[in-house]
């Protein structure tokens, strides 16, 4: 299009100046800005990190944003596992860069900080990576949805299954900060509720612990049947490796384990461990199809449940934006989240599902057992299914979470 002086003047006269200048660049297509705030360098880089950004882009590509009259811009940043860094980035994104949605945010401490900022600025926050069930409990708000899993789901699925199969006495090795304590607390409730008992626990310093042998010997000496690992990432990996090395005869309950952790452990060490994930790349045709599409973009790896959650949550957000209109979505984060709760969710990763009033995304929780090396057919063939907890039972009952959004 050639721009003559006459049309330029005519347009300038017709619209207010700021709209004119931005319109001249973007041709008036409304732009949504999505920020992926994740761990790009620390212990959660592999289970979230660059793979989460790839999953976000995958959602944009598959939804076909340009064909639907939208324009989406993606930003990403490393929160360094520090709540203050995460909150500062979130503030800058919302205030300076005009970001409308923040996704991912692995690490419970950072996740809670970002939830507060999203509420204050009335934007949208879809968390996939963090564990704490407080995001939909005492710390819930109208701008936040917790997408993939939480400490309650893990405790119920893994802890409950262990007690049912005879593991009625427990010893916990717990990372000494909010996440580990929440996980131990939630699991203890299930163990005791099912008639089991907790005979002891140790809280070890985080971060910086790499030798767990001392705690493992203490656990063994306690006489408990089950060893509950209330930790994550490399800590869990080292605990499991060393339990094998020291011939610990207890049953291991990995309360939070990701696909990438199993790869790091190797099947000869990890075999037989029972764990809970709400997504596994090989669990059905739709999940396999999604993984095949994403895999080439993440260096041939298979996506974790956190990365799948980023894909799923962004897809649902885009659907909602199509229904509401981009302008409204940009204007009011709480209204957008309210609309997202009205529309049923459905995607290749988690199948059909819904979002509850307290911001909890509902889908089934799956209990898996890690395969023996002989059973595995490929480099990422790790799990076999044990049990499924249906969506309506997998998470904490709505009235038990003390979320202020839930009116009794």
């Amino acid at each position: 299009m050639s721009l003559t002086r006459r049309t330029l003047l005519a347009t300038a006269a017709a619209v207010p100046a700021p709209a004119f200048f931005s319109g001249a660049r973007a041709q008036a297509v409304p732009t949504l800005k999505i920020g992926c705030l994740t761990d790009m360098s620390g212990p959660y880089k592999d289970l979230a990190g660059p793979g989460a950004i790839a999953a976000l882009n995958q959602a944009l590509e598959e939804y076909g944003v340009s064909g639907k009259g939208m324009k989406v811009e993606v930003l990403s940043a490393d929160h360094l596992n520090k709540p203050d860094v995460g909150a500062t980035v979130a503030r800058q994104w919302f205030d300076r860069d005009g970001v409308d949605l923040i996704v991912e945010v692995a690490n419970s401490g950072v996740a809670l900080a970002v939830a507060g900022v999203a509420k204050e600025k009335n934007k949208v926050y879809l968390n996939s990576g963090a564990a704490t069930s407080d995001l939909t409990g005492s710390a819930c708000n109208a701008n936040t949805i917790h997408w993939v899993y939480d400490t309650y789901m893990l405790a119920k699925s893994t802890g409950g299954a262990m007690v049912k199969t005879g593991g009625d006495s427990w010893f916990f090795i717990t990372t000494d900060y909010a996440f580990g304590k929440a996980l131990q607390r939630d699991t203890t409730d299930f163990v005791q509720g099912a008639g089991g008992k907790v005979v002891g626990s140790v809280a070890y310093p985080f971060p910086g612990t790499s030798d767990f042998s001392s705690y493992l010997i203490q656990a063994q000496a306690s006489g408990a049947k089950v060893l509950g690992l209330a930790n994550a990432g490399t800590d869990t990996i080292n605990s499991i490796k060393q339990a094998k090395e020291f011939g610990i005869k207890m049953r291991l309950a990995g309360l939070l384990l990701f696909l990438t952790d199993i790869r790091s452990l190797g099947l000869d060490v990890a075999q037989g461990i029972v764990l809970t994930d709400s997504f596994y790349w090989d669990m059905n045709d739709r999940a396999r199809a999604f993984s095949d599409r994403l895999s080439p973009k993440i260096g041939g790896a298979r996506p974790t449940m956190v990365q799948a959650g980023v894909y799923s949550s962004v897809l649902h957000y885009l659907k909602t934006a199509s229904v509401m209109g981009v302008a409204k979505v940009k204007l009011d984060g709480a209204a957008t989240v309210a609309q997202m709760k009205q529309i049923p969710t459905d995607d290749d990763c988690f199948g059909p599902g819904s979002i509850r009033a307290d911001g909890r995304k509902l889908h089934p929780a799956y209990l898996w057992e890690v395969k023996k090396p002989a059973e595995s057919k490929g480099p990422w063939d790790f799990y076999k299914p044990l049990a499924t907890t249906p969506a309506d039972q997998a998470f904490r009952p709505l009235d038990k979470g003390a979320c202020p959004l839930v009116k009794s």
Partner: protein
Amino acid sequence: MITIFGVPGPLLFGQLLLGLINGAFYAMLSLGLAVIFGMLNIINFAHGALFMMGAFVAWILLDSLGIGYFPALILAPLIVGAFGVVLERTIISRLYKLDHLYGLLLTFGLSLVIEGLFRNAYGSSGLPYRIPDVLQGATNLGFMYMPNYRGWVVLAAVVVCFSTWAIIEKTSLGATLRAATENAPLVQAFGVNVPRLITLTYGAGVALAAFAGVLAAPIYSVNPNMGSNFINTVFAVVVIGGMGSILGSILTGFGLGVIEGLTKVFYPQASATVVFFVMIIILLARPRGLFGKAA
């Protein structure tokens, strides 16, 4: 069953032994630091990163060339040692005339760069390295189940530590090294190539770190942060033992491992801080460290 302070005896013996195993790593790492500081006057903050490189080189040798654990125990220190020599010649040697602080900052920066590169290439959750078949399994000691591999680690560490000590304190090469530290121009006047001696010393200190890295690979997952978990404690060990004291760092390394092990039984939350608590007390009582020489 006997109990000591309310803790069953067998459990306590087990913890002492575990402390000794961790102490073996502290001793090997602080030994390399002490050698480098003694000869080069460089506070080598890159030591943790070089330890990590040792483990990664062993993993790469196995993964891409099929070279197993025992050859890697020799090859990885040689490869990483050679890398250390290049580092010393091209970068670190420029700082000898400046204050210690510059060397510390430079090597700290180097360690961030090295760890960042490995994190970028191999991710952060770690890679598995199998315990070699001959060292698989465990021995029942009565009071605890002792993995054979850990026994091997202690044995290897003791042998390596004391041979290094013997080389420096009892051989003519060691005598030359010590003389060069005291008065480099004089030793050079006797026809000794002091800069080359210093380069090789740095290479040897780095090789020690890499050796410890290979020993650590099957115990901890091979991961880019494995060095930074150790390095703070190891520096405390060097300070407590007396900066630059070889024997001091070996004995302190094992000793602190045991103290840390006992803390894990009585009050696990403090196990990461107890080493620094000891450091404060020692520095108040003996500012030059346990084995440091008076100025």
